[in-house]
């Protein structure tokens, strides 16, 4: 019998995990082979020392704990920073768009041609806020999407 097989059989028998037939065969083998008996004795000694170590040191069985994956619940404190960030982005985008539109409308017809085509379904498809170059303040400017020429509202 291979030493590995004997090792496995002795341990399984010790734990009562060997079938009666296999246990009987093992007994016969040990009865016939003195070297196998000595080897079995050494295996059992190792087994007992292992058991003593485990019993005396419970920390060995306390394996490192895998952190539990808990889904994050959206709390007020977690949501508010998002809202704040979204609002800040919206304001920035609005201001940016406003100044972009101002520079386009203030220019000539050639510059108006550079104006991106407004969305037709929007109320601002044909109009947008603009500063009067003559210093009259803010005015509503119609953007003719056909000719792309801005015209002042009456």
């Amino acid at each position: 019998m291979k030493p590995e097989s004997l090792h496995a059989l002795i341990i399984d028998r010790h734990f009562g995990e060997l079938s009666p037939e296999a246990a009987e065969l093992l007994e016969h083998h040990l009865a016939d082979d003195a070297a196998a008996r000595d080897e079995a004795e050494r295996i059992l000694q190792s087994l007992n020392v292992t058991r003593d170590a485990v019993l005396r040191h419970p920390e060995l069985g306390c394996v490192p704990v895998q952190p539990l994956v808990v889904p994050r619940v959206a709390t007020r404190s977690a949501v508010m920073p998002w809202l704040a960030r979204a609002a800040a982005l919206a304001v920035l985008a609005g201001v940016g768009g406003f100044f972009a539109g101002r520079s386009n409308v203030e220019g000539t017809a050639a510059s108006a041609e550079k104006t991106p085509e407004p969305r037709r379904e929007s109320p601002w498809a044909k109009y947008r806020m603009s500063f009067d170059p003559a210093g009259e303040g803010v005015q509503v400017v119609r953007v003719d999407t056909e000719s792309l020429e801005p015209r002042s509202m009456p």
Partner: protein
Amino acid sequence: MLPADESSLNRVDTTNQPPLLERLFTESEGDLTRYFARRHGGGEGVQDLVQETFLQMARGLKDGKSPKCARGYLFGIARHLSQAAWSSRAQVIPLNESLHNVAAPTQDDRVEAARETISTLEPMQREILDLRFAQGLSYAEIAEALGIPVGTVRSRLHHAVAEVRHRLESELNS
């Protein structure tokens, strides 16, 4: 502690026997208490964990679960609860740090050598050793508790003992 495969818990219910959960409680409550006490020390918290284990077992049975090995399934629940308790309390004890209030001091160099060897094994292997030696679970029960094949339990156990033996022989020769 029960002999593994001969435990009535691993057999099918019959009419004259008390319900599975009742038998489980009667036969395994002590083992579960020792299991949790070994991991978390004494105190009322241990009894809470034992009760919670049986509660979850009852829920599982009510939901139609039919584990192959009831006691192994019970210890599987206990294991999860133990880990959750450790996580929630952040009581992760470093591996090389002994539980001085639980572990008895030893002067046996061979046991110390075995302890060092076992501490180098992978966590699953150490847990198998603990469930086998300290809790007396069978291979099948350990497999059910850890969710691994029985053959893996057997081979890891054999390997662990072989490692300890190798270490002891090395020390003896040196």
